[in-house]
């Protein structure tokens, strides 16, 4: 089947790489032209486009995986100028994985949103698509400044989405969220321009090539630049102590937005993983592994903060927010070790924890509504100008064509569904068997104890940092388990006199789909782990990335070949 798919895709590549960026952009542009009353059309467009994006991402993932060892990544020269002069998009296994992850989370949250949340404010659908565009662009680009631009697209849309539904809590946390992200963007620009001043390029592959040849006098400046740049990504990845904005913002956001934001911290993780392995791999000479200790220690502190936060939180959405911090911390400190087997483990852990946290954000909304007897979905909505208690648009602002009330067709056995889903979330987040969180944590623990792979210790003992991370991974898992179990008992066992929750198919389906993906990751752990190991191998061999990007040839235009005076992109490269 895979070969058939690849045969089908061969003529489309590399142009299909643009689809994850262009598709949401065009959908958003189209939706902006529609009036706010045409909700049904917008819903159709949003779902259709997100689903198509998901299918394209899956096809790209199969393509990226199906290639032989010779060509491990696809390079798209957006302006038909050879690297490093033009903007370059690169599709490798890591980008494809992140694309699929963000599209899946996006699809689940758009399904959840159309049950009712999309009516809470205006322009939900275009903002949602623009956010997907920013995410996909950030995962595909191979240019530092282009990464900044896609970050800003993603953030601009996320500011709008965070405020969706309005209300005092959202505006308040939005204020902090925007302020810290603007400050982070300034740091990003300072770091990127310093790197440009030092190396004369912003192309990631060219940067990686230039790091090895940097002058000894410039080395401290390089480290300062990388540190400032890393700080911008670490703020996005919510490292302690730069993460106080996250929990209020994510928990104040409406449920589908919170679920989508679960992927936002992972963008910071992705950027660090990509740039750190590229710039400070073995080929960086004296700068190799620069900052690894910072990542390890910062990640560990973040883990402790996240686990304690989970233990101390009463509200479900806080629990999900701290869960996102905990997962970020584990990933960061595992990245810091810079070992391929550990990277493979963390890459397996990344999608499963993201999916589970995303599902937990959705579940939190359903369980809060159940607890409040369907009266209000969360305590904030008294301030929302668009809403009354039923989450139905107020009169005079008819956002919806069919006034379908909450209690449409409800799922039978909704309590059982909520309980099982919550249990599955607990298992994945705490890393207990049999679900994928356990497999991911087990892979990480095994890599920590056997840095050279199973049965090949070579007399080398794991260092103290390895032991510390091992203890923290198990310990924070235990704390998360305690916190989640306690909340579960409070919600499902201690409250006997509540009416059965009213749950619609559209709300149950995305939660079930996210968790079913976790189950799928567990069942298919072998092939998935192979994929992650291949990803990690390529990541820790930056020369492959550099070679793929720098050797990409522009398409020659036949009508310009041989004409005097016309600048041929291919010549520019030789002249350099």
């Amino acid at each position, binding site marked *: 089947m895979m070969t058939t798919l690849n045969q089908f895709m061969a003529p489309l590549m590399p142009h299909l790489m643009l689809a994850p960026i262009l598709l949401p952009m065009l959908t958003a542009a189209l939706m902006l032209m529609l009036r706010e009353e045409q909700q049904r059309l917008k819903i159709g467009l949003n779902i259709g486009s997100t689903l198509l994006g998901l299918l394209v991402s899956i096809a790209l993932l199969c393509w990226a995986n199906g290639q032989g060892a010779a060509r491990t990544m696809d390079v798209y020269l957006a302006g038909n100028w050879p690297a490093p002069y033009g903007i370059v998009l690169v599709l490798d296994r890591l980008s494809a994985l992140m694309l699929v992850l963000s599209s899946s989370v996006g699809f689940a949250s758009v399904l959840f949103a159309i049950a009712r949340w999309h009516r809470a404010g205006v322009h939900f659908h275009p903002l949602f698509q623009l956010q997907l565009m920013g995410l996909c662009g950030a995962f595909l680009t191979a240019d530092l400044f282009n990464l900044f631009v896609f970050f800003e697209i993603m953030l*601009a849309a996320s500011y709008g989405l965070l405020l969706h539904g309005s209300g*005092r809590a959202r505006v308040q946390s939005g204020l902090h969220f*925007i*302020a810290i992200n*603007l*400050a982070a963007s300034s740091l990003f620009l300072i770091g990127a321009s310093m790197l*440009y001043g030092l190396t004369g390029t912003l192309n990631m592959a060219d940067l990686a090539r230039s790091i090895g040849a940097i002058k000894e006098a410039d080395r401290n400046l390089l480290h300062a630049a990388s540190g400032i740049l890393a700080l911008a990504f670490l703020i996005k990845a919510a490292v302690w102590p730069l993460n106080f904005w996250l929990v209020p913002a994510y928990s104040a956001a409406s449920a589908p937005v919170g679920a989508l934001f679960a992927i936002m911290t992972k963008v910071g993780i992705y950027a660090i993983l990509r740039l750190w392995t590229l710039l400070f791999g073995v080929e960086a000479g004296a700068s190799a592994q620069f900052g690894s200790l910072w990542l390890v220690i910062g990640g560990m502190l973040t883990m402790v903060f996240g686990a304690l936060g989970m233990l101390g939180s009463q509200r479900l959405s806080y629990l999900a927010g701290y869960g996102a911090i905990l997962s970020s911390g584990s990933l960061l400190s595992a990245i810091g070790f810079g070992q391929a087997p550990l990277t493979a483990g963390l890459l397996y852990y990344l999608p499963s924890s993201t999916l589970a946290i995303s599902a937990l954000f959705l579940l939190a909304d359903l369980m809060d509504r159940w607890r409040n007897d369907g009266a209000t979905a969360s305590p904030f909505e008294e301030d929302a100008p668009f809403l009354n208690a039923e989450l139905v648009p107020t009169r005079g602002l008819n956002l919806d064509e069919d006034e379908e009330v909450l209690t449409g067709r409800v799922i039978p056995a909704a309590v059982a569904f909520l309980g099982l889903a919550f249990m599955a979330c607990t298992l994945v987040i705490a890393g207990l068997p049999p679900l994928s969180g356990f497999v991911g944590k087990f892979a990480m623990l095994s890599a920590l104890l056997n840095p050279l792979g199973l049965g090949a210790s070579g007399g080398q003992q794991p260092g103290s940092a390895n032991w510390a991370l091992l203890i923290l991974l198990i310990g924070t898992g235990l704390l998360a388990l305690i916190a989640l179990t306690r909340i579960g008992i409070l919600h499902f066992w201690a409250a006997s006199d509540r009416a059965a929750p009213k749950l619609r198919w559209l709300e149950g389906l995305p939660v079930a789909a996210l968790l079913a993906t976790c189950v799928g990751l567990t069942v298919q752990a072998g092939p998935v782990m192979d994929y992650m190991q291949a990803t990690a191998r390529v990541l820790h061999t930056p020369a492959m990335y550099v070679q793929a990007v720098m050797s990409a040839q522009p398409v020659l235009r036949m009508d310009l070949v041989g004409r005097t005076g016309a600048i041929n992109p291919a010549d520019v490269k030789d002249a350099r």
Partner: protein
Amino acid sequence: MEIVLAIAIGILTGSGVWLLLRPRTFQVIMGLALLSYAVNLFIFSMGRLGLALGKAPLIQAGLPQNLVHYADPMPQALALTAVVIGFAMTALFLVVLLASRGMSGTDHVDGSDAGDEPGADVSNQKKRP
């Protein structure tokens, strides 16, 4: 010239960071604006070393097309993009600031003055409707 530029960037950044840490939303937005000015100047100053300074980045007739006769156009392009994005984001922040002021009745960044600035007069704050 370098020292003037460096001092200007330093003063802008210093004032920006100080304002950013103040408790009033208007101070924060001014701080962010000053920071973005500093960053834009900084990007300008990061033009690649070894290239001609004080030259236009446009190709002119009669001058050989090599990097000796033209300034580095890259930082200018970067600064232009950064200016546009920074401007849009600041405008957005302004809207949220006003919404927060309208909803909470105070211009404190946390939406309430409780426990902050003991000398501040809280009594004249607008009560929420």
